[in-house]
C-alpha cells in the first residue's frame, strides 16, 4: 500500500515538473523565435505623416533612426527647392542662413542649368521632417521620412508610434520594410 502511495506522489510530482518544463521551454522558444525572426518591422506611411517633428525627439536611438529619404523619380530637380531653402530666402544659394535643414543635411549639387540634385546626408539627418514639410508644401513631395532598419531597434512598442498624432507609424512585413514614395503610392494602401 505504502509503495503504491509513494508511486502516485512521484507520478504527480513528475507530471508537474514536466508540465512546468514544457511551459517554460515553450515560452522561451516563442520568445527566442520572436527575438530572432522579425516578421514585422516599424515603418512610416509617408502619406499619413504630418511632419510633427516627434520622430526626431521621441526615438529611443540618439540620433533618431528616422531619416529623410529622397524619391528622385518624383523630384523636379528645381533651382528653387522648397525642401532645401527657407520660404522667402532672399537668394537661391547654399548659404547656411538660407537653408531649411537645421543640421545642413541636404547637399545641393549642380546638374545642368537650371537643374539641381538634392542629396540627403543621413549621418547628419535627425529626422525632424522640416524639409519634408517644405517639399510637401512647396514642391512635389519627393522628400519623406523612413525608419532605417540598420539603425532601428525594432522595439516591441515603438516610442515614436506611441505619440505619433497621425498614426503614420505602422508594422510592415520585413520582406518589404520600406514604403518609398513613387514605388509606394496612395492607391497601394487601398
Amino acid at each position: 500500500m505504502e509503495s503504491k502511495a509513494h508511486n502516485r506522489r512521484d507520478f504527480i510530482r513528475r507530471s508537474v515538473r514536466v508540465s512546468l518544463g514544457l511551459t517554460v521551454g515553450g515560452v522561451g522558444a516563442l520568445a527566442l523565435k520572436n527575438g530572432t525572426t522579425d516578421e514585422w518591422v516599424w515603418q512610416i506611411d509617408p502619406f499619413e505623416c504630418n511632419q510633427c517633428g516627434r520622430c526626431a525627439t521621441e526615438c529611443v536611438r540618439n540620433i533618431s533612426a528616422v531619416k529623410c529619404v529622397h524619391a528622385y523619380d518624383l523630384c523636379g530637380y528645381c533651382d528653387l527647392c522648397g525642401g532645401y531653402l527657407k520660404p522667402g530666402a532672399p537668394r537661391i544659394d547654399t548659404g547656411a542662413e538660407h537653408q531649411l535643414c537645421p543640421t545642413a543635411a541636404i547637399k545641393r549639387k549642380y546638374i545642368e542649368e537650371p537643374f539641381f540634385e538634392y542629396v540627403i546626408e543621413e549621418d547628419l539627418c535627425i529626422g525632424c521632417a522640416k524639409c519634408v514639410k517644405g517639399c510637401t508644401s512647396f514642391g512635389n513631395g519627393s522628400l519623406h521620412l523612413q525608419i532605417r532598419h540598420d539603425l532601428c531597434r525594432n522595439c516591441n512598442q515603438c516610442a515614436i508610434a506611441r505619440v505619433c498624432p497621425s498614426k503614420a507609424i505602422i508594422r510592415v512585413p520585413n520582406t518589404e520594410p520600406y514604403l518609398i514614395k513613387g514605388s509606394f503610392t496612395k492607391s497601394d494602401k487601398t
Partner: protein
Amino acid sequence: MKKTFIYVFLSLVVIIILVLVVKDFSSNRPGRMSGNPYKLDVDEIMAVDPELISYRETRNYDIDADKLGGIALSGENICIGADDYLQMIDPEGKQIMKIKLPHSPECLTVSEQGNILVGFRNGLALYSPEGEEIWKTDTMGERAVFTAVRMTSSVIYVADAGQRAVHRYGPDGSYIDSFEGKTQIEGNYGFIVPSPYFDLAIAPDGELWVANPGKHSIENYTGEGKLRAYWENMNPTIDGFSGCCNPAHIDIMTDGSFVTSEKGVVRIKIHKPSGELATVVAAPDKFLVDGEAPDVAVHEDGTVYALDYDRKTIRIFEPK
C-alpha cells in the same frame, strides 16, 4: 473610529486622483506634448488679408467620379472631363450631356462653334456639341503628357509637360510643329516643368500666353513660338507665385487679366495684364492643405469656375 477611517480613505482617493491628473498633464501623449521645435511655419504664407478677397463661393456641384480631367466653359454651360467621360453641366448643375471617351481626359477646351477639344495623355480628339467625334490625332509618343489645350479658328495649341514643349496643330488635327520656349536671353532655358502642371491660354486679342511654372512666369509667344513678352514673380507672398513651380493653371479674362491657380499653398488669384496682383478669388483656407491646384475657367462676366480635384467638386466663385 469609523469616521476617521472614512476621512483617511477619502483623502487617499483624492490624492490618487490628483496624482493621476498631474501625471496625465505632464505626460507626452499626443495632444499633451509641447510644440514642435522643428516646425516649418507656413501660416504666414497661408494667411490672406480679407480685404484682398473680392470673390465669394456661391455654388458648388459635386462630381461622381474618381478622377477629374479639366474644366472649360461652353457659353453658360460647364464642360468637364471625369473618369472616361466628357460631361456637360448646365448653370443649375444638371448634367445635360455625358459621352464615353476612348481614354481618360486630361484637359479640354471649347471652340467658338461649340465643338469640344479633348486632350488625352498623348493625343487629341474633337467632338461636336452633340458629342459625336469629328476627328482624332495620332499619339504623340510615350513621353508626351498633355496638360492643356486651347484653340483659335486657325490653330490648336497643346501644352506637353512630358516633353516640355508647346505643340501646334491645324484646325483639322494635323500636327504642325512644336516649340520649347528657348531664347538667346541669358537665364532663359525654355519651359521648365518640374511637375505635370503646364498650362496655356488664349487672350481675347488672340495672343498666346504660356505659364512657365519653373520660372514662375507667364510668357507671351507669337504664333511661330517666339517669346515676345513675359512677367514673373517668384515669391511666396500673396502677390507672387510660391513653391517650385507655379502657376499650375491659368485662364484669361476679357480685360486681359490672368486668373491663376497655384499648387502647394493652394490659392486662386487674379493678376492684372502687367502681372500686378489685382485680387484674390480664393484663399488657401478654402482648399485642403497641400492639396492639388484646381483647374480654372473664367466666364466673361468675371465668374471663376474651379475644378477642385481633391473634393471632386466644381466650385463657382462670383465677385462680391
